[in-house]
């Protein structure tokens, strides 16, 4: 029988203290992190004035709104809504395509294996990252001011908002290409253009296409709201209906958005699955 004596225990405790208790510094750090977290949360809740009275009152009003929404009804604007929805889809499609086309050269510029200069690469990537910080709706506001109300401003907002993200994703795709094909083209006597066209492009095209489709999906979602600031599409109809307290029609438009987004997601997911299958890897 092996029994462990108190003496042995004490010796083990001395030699491996970390097995018996967490070091003080770790414990203090954990506690400080939790305290900071809870403190920030409490401060935030205080800042936004989240008191129980307000929540209860708001929920009552929310319940009233929901009861006003039922049943959703298109009124006599059904075809207007369909047209606005098509406009939304068109804005998303055109904006995505423009951004993607313009992003191809930017992507090549930002790829480490095309532009090996470290400083250039780092600076350009930070610029690409920085532009992501501006929400699409802010771009829409700016373009509505610059080129006037209407879907054209929405197209520009989507294109500009996505351009830098595409550039970054494309650059990453280009950096991840297999070098074997590139070497193959070079070994067969291809010049730099040939290498890009025959060695790099066929590898990155499916990845790029997949990104483009994914962004089309997400742009359809964001295009539905651009109208709220006057950039065309279904958002304009929605915010109008809300402004005049026509909640049945607002609910109908929201349902329309849900259905459209679901359909687009479904189609795009299928195409993307195919594209990824066709791609050698990645």
């Amino acid at each position: 029988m092996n029994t462990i004596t108190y003496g042995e225990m004490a010796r083990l405790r001395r030699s491996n203290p970390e097995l018996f208790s967490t070091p003080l510094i770790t414990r203090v750090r954990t506690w400080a992190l939790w305290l900071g977290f809870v403190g920030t949360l409490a401060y935030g809740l205080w800042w936004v004035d989240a008191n129980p009275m307000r929540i209860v009152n708001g929920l009552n009003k929310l319940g009233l709104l929901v009861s006003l929404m039922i049943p959703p009804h298109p009124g006599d604007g059904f075809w207007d809504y369909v047209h606005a929805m098509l406009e939304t889809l068109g804005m998303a499609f055109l904006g995505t395509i423009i951004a993607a086309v313009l992003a191809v050269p930017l992507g090549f510029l930002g790829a480490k294996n095309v532009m090996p200069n470290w400083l250039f690469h780092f600076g350009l990537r930070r610029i690409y990252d920085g532009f992501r910080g501006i929400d699409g709706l802010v771009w829409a506001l700016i373009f509505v001011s610059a080129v006037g109300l209407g879907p054209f401003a929405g197209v520009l907002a989507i294109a500009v908002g996505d351009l830098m993200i595409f550039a970054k994703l494309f650059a990453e795709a280009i950096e991840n290409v297999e070098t074997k094909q590139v070497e193959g083209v070079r070994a067969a006597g291809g010049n730099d253009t040939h290498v890009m066209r025959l060695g790099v492009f066929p590898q990155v095209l499916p990845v790029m296409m997949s990104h483009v489709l994914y962004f089309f999906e997400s742009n359809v979602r964001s295009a539905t709201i651009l109208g709220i600031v006057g950039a065309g599409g279904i958002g304009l109809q929605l915010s109008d209906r809300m402004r005049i307290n026509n909640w049945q029609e607002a609910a109908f438009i929201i349902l329309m958005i849900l259905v459209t987004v679901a359909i687009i997601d479904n189609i795009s997911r299928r195409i993307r699955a195919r594209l990824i299958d066709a791609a050698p890897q990645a």
Partner: protein
Amino acid sequence: MTTMGHSEGGFAAGRPQRLVAFEQRFAAERRRKRLWTLLQFGLFSIALAGSIVVSDFNLNGLMNGLPKAWNYIVGTLPSLSLETLGADLADWYWGLRFWLRLLVETILMGFVGTVLGGLVALLLCFPASRNLVENTGIYFAARRSLEFLRTVPELVFALIFVFAFGLGPFAGVLAIAVHTAGSLGKLFAEVNENVDPRPIEGVRAAGGNWPMLMRLGVVPQALPNYASYLLLRFEINVRGASALGIVGAGGIGQELYVAIRQFEYTDISAIMLLLIATTSIIDITCETIRHRLIGQDMQAGH
């Protein structure tokens, strides 16, 4: 493939026929492929043409619009000169204290919204994981409700909540929380579906009930991934919070909206630069933490 047609002797008699059959197949395959490409190209062209028609996009508008947009952007930049740089900067950022306060509000909105949404997501993600619930009805209901929360745009929730809870950041926080619950719930559920089932079986064998299974069998495995997604969402939500002010739901968006509407050009660029700087700092910080959190997993995986 490369030696086809080049080898000599041996089976010369059978070759031409096989070669003919091969070439026929090749031609047929190529025709089919070309047809597909043509069809896809046609569909794409139709979609493009349709989009151009419905979105009023024309070359004329573009030619007029692009210079206008460019002038606008250039117009927002302040005139800085090297001699009076300090004074110019002070003039440009005249409202810095006020803007910083609104930036703090924006970040806090993102933070509180992410935490509240994350809590709801944590509750909903277990019934939305296929491997953790036997009742398909519960699974279906949980999945659909997450989908609903996620698909209705954040800004639409914000509009509705501004009506119900009044103007101000509280409506924005709720809108962020609701949307976050939907998207994080789905991601958490996907993490849950990929956990190792053995710890769950262990807890079950030891007599644990369903909440215990989740708490002791699933959560310890999934926690680093939850945290990583939570941080990612926080980045996104700070960005989103900056736009919510446009509909009156608090944050710096309101100030930006006013600046754009009243054509206070230099204010626009000042606030936008502040926003870019803030979101970049948050992105970099969160990315560092995330890499640390899932660093071990990645090393094990590769």
